[in-house]
């Protein structure tokens, strides 16, 4: 039996006394592509942030690659794709510079980048179709291209597990396709994926399991639920106006 990549056991997360997640358990094993689905404010983003240690747990435990989160140090095995690129203070940065940050987990703080690092950055840029924009400032890219930059940054570290927070929210169709292609290659190479999504779109065929979070608990864990009613219409674009975001401190 293989070691689970992610093990969440009876996890609870609260914020200012308000419970966001209660008694959540989840196991992800090697090669799985797990989609965390749920409405805005259901706690789905909080769940993956808790998995990564970005949100402290109120109760329960998280283990990554069989190691308790507190003792986990092999961060190069994980590629994280946040919801959006931080605005920063206005100092320009090129696409390549942002993607190169993805090598730090592997390289460490002190070692300068070598040939393998540069090759991995180029490969990641190519895999998301941004090789021709490598020298451009990220601020000049469209939202979808910025999202692809973040995915390339995660892929540049050659991780075994990708954790993505709403990678396709508000992303144009071309970028969604490019992203789905990059993810497909990653999964074909034996990678494991945990992603939060509001809609699956072109990712749907890749998903091996869906976890639906509702009101801080897991309401469904199994095959991807079939869309019902007008949601099943192939032309239906399942995009909701966004409600208030979850508290930024989480």
């Amino acid at each position: 039996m293989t070691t689970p990549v992610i093990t969440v056991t009876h996890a609870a997360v609260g914020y200012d006394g308000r419970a966001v997640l209660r008694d959540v358990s989840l196991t992800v094993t090697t090669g799985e592509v797990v989609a965390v689905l749920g409405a805005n404010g259901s706690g789905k983003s909080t769940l993956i942030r808790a998995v990564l240690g970005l949100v402290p747990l109120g109760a329960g435990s998280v283990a990554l690659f069989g190691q308790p989160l507190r003792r986990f140090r092999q961060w190069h095995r994980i590629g994280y794709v946040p919801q959006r690129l931080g605005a920063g203070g206005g100092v320009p940065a090129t696409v390549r510079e942002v993607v190169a940050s993805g090598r730090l987990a592997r390289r460490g703080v002190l070692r300068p980048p070598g040939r393998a690092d540069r090759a991995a950055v180029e490969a990641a840029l190519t895999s998301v179709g941004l090789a021709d924009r490598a020298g451009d400032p990220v601020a000049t890219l469209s939202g979808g291209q910025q999202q692809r930059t973040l995915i390339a940054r995660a892929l540049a570290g050659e991780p075994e597990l990708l954790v993505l927070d709403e990678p396709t929210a508000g992303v144009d169709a071309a970028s969604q396709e490019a992203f789905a292609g990059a993810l497909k290659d990653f999964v074909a190479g034996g990678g494991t994926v945990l992603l939060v999504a509001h809609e699956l779109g072109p990712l749907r065929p890749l998903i091996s399991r869906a976890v639906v979070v509702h009101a801080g608990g897991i309401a469904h864990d199994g095959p991807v639920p079939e869309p019902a009613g007008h949601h099943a219409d192939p032309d239906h674009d399942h995009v909701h106006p966004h409600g208030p975001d979850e508290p930024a401190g989480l």
Partner: protein
Amino acid sequence: MELFQYPYMQRALIGALVIGLAAPALGIYLVQRRLALIGDGVGHVALTGVGAGLLLNRSPVLVAVIVASLGAITIELVRARGRTSGDLALALLFYGGIAGGVMLVGLSDSTSASLNAYLFGSLSTIKPEDLVVIAVLGAAILLTMLALRPALFAICHDEEYARVSGLPVRTLNLLLAVATAVTVTIAMRAVGVLLISALMVVPVAAAQQVTRGFRSTMTAAMTLGLFAAGSGVYVAATADTAPGASVVLMAIASFAVVALAGAGWRTLRRRPVAPATAPTAEPHEVVLDRS
């Protein structure tokens, strides 16, 4: 140019050049983090160190380095907690720092001239041993900022991502805080605590008008810092103006020139807009189905 034959003018020039190079190398990280004015705050705190040093008859610069480092670490800890009360805590620290400085300098036997020297800089009073301190600490700051650029860029660009990369985020943040304190203190002699932030921030602001990447911005900012420091000291020596103010005004003048040149270049380069292909319609935000 004969003025620069005098050793004290040479020391002033070398000291200013070292600071002109080191301050923007650190400042770029502060600007990227939206902490452009932190140097100002640390400068206020450093003044208390100067006052304590003068009162205790110890080296004011040394005591200022220690007090400013403690202040910068406190500011970083408040920032890392990220609660809204942060800016009030910072305000208390800043004003407490400057009030403490003025009070302690007053209690010591020093004249108001020595307070002025720290407030607005006093390049021509740099002694040979001061220059050694400035050169060694300035070189240390410069090397650290260049050697750790990928890691510092990562934490300033996206701190959460840096944490998930396993970078020692807290240690690097504290390093940045202490480096800020050290830069402020060595620059104190050149431009004064009230004008230090300008040398950290203005060259970066000027450079980013025309650059496309982080590394090129850093290089351009350091070049502009060097130019502002050199030309500022020259202007001060020939026109007998205050050196700190001259250096800062040269930096702001270079900002204006670069910003205008950048805007002009962009206008010239702008090609006539090609007829775009028909825009694809955005999908509907919501589907209302009440039938």
